């Protein structure tokens, strides 16, 4: 953890509702490139002010994302079947780690920070994020830990949060995905993170298992706010923000909106389009994209799927609620808990 003497600006938090991966990717790219622009123009006449640390939280419509070392990998048939029926998208990303799934019921947190400013080494940074998630889980009375493999685990070889980070000039992007009440069936289509014999897990599953085993009284579960769905995820998101802020040494958090990020993009000529990093991609409206260098081409016809929102795999019930714009940016300056 960075020394407390560091005088860091407030962590700017962009809290997005359930979104298309492409949208989050684009906003992330603007902030990431803003940091890089600062670095490359420092000391020149075109120098721009140093950007503050940013954190994007969101969850995605179903998508399988592949890691850097899987750039040439063809997805398994089970995933391709989902693709062709428009039930999930895939994306190839520059992050570390291997294939994973993102979907509703997850809390995804992408810090975009200059590790040097936070006096964190890459190795240290990954551990800082893991520890933040462990503290979040502790708040909800779930005992979690790290292993030799990255990510956050609960006992019996069950993985509850996945980590994959990209660093360029020590500026971070991508981050962590914590399964709150994710439908875990999605993970069965892949060998998540390249780890065979690992069971993907969620907070919900953990608490249900405990209840079944009589290890936890229902009263207690209810007492700690175990109502599934949107409200609970919002609470988890707040904890994640607060613990990540603490982990990277930011004493304050400050909410921002997507429009502010887009405005920054316009001001500095950062379109965010290069953040669209997939080779093949079907978005939620059924458009198929292919990316060649910086050029994004729409390929194939626009397909209007029979039933876009309903999937064989049961999606979360409160999906529509999730897109409620009210959820964006919970107000006020929030002090991270010490």
């Amino acid at each position: 953890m960075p020394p407390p003497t560091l005088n860091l600006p407030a962590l700017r938090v962009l809290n997005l509702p359930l979104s298309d991966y492409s949208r989050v990717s684009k906003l992330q790219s603007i902030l990431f490139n803003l940091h890089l622009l600062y670095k490359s123009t420092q000391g020149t006449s075109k120098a721009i002010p140093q950007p503050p640390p940013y954190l994007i939280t969101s969850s995605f419509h179903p998508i399988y994302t592949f890691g850097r070392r899987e750039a040439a990998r063809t997805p398994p048939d089970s995933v391709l079947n989902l693709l062709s029926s428009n039930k999930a998208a895939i994306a190839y990303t520059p992050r570390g780690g291997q294939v994973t799934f993102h979907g509703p019921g997850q809390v995804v947190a992408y810090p975009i920070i200059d590790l040097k400013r936070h006096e964190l080494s890459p190795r240290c940074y990954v551990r800082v994020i893991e520890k933040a998630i462990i503290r979040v889980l502790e708040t909800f009375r779930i005992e979690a830990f790290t292993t030799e493999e990255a990510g956050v685990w609960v006992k019996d070889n069950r993985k509850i949060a996945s980590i994959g980070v990209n660093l360029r000039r020590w500026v971070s992007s991508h981050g962590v995905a914590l399964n709150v009440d994710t439908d875990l069936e999605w993970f069965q289509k892949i060998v998540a993170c390249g780890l065979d014999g690992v069971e993907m897990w969620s907070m919900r599953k953990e608490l249900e298992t405990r209840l079944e085993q009589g290890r936890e009284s229902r009263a207690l579960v209810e007492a700690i706010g175990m109502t599934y769905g949107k409200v609970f995820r919002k609470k988890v998101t707040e904890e994640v923000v607060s613990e990540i802020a603490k982990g990277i040494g930011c004493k304050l958090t400050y909410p921002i909106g997507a429009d502010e990020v887009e405005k920054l993009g316009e001001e500095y000529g950062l379109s965010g389009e290069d953040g669209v990093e997939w080779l093949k991609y079907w978005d939620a409206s059924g458009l198929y994209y292919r990316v060649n260098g910086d050029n994004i081409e729409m390929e194939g016809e626009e397909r209007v799927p029979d039933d876009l929102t309903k999937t064989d795999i049961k999606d979360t019930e409160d999906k529509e609620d999730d897109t409620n714009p009210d959820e964006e940016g919970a107000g006020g300056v929030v002090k991270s808990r010490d």
Partner: protein
Amino acid sequence: MASTLRLVSRALPRASAPLCRTTAAAPVRILGTPLGRRHLSVTAPRLEIIKRYTEDHEWISYDTESGVGTIGITNYAQEKLGEVVFIELPDIDSSVEADDSIGAVESVKSASDIMSPVSGTVIQVNDTLNEKPKLVNEDPEGENGWIVKVEVGEGEVERLQEELMDEEAYVRYTQE
């Protein structure tokens, strides 16, 4: 130190035309080095290895005789990254520009881009790293852990010496 400062361009053999396929595409960045990025520049004697370091912990060692620059990550960088599990290498013959990503070093779930300190053409990659990425930990600045060899574009050597750190400056930088 000041007494050893001389015009670098005179001490170096000019790269011949076929060596500079990428110069047309290379951005103009010969003059007006930003003050903030200036570091000690020491003139290289003839036919020697000029080794320089970036603020992002890449090293390049330029062979003045062949015009080839070997690029890797520093010992400091590998310590900070931890165990390397995968190296992404660029395609041979691909042209690179200074400050572009030419690959990545992946360690504990973080993939760090390797930024090219120079513009030029990739002529060789260290294939052994596909099998043994850990060589980057074991011998980051030596015979085994280098990552790519680049035919360095025209004017780049001068810029390299102007803008990047020599060993002494780099050691100081990492101790800051």
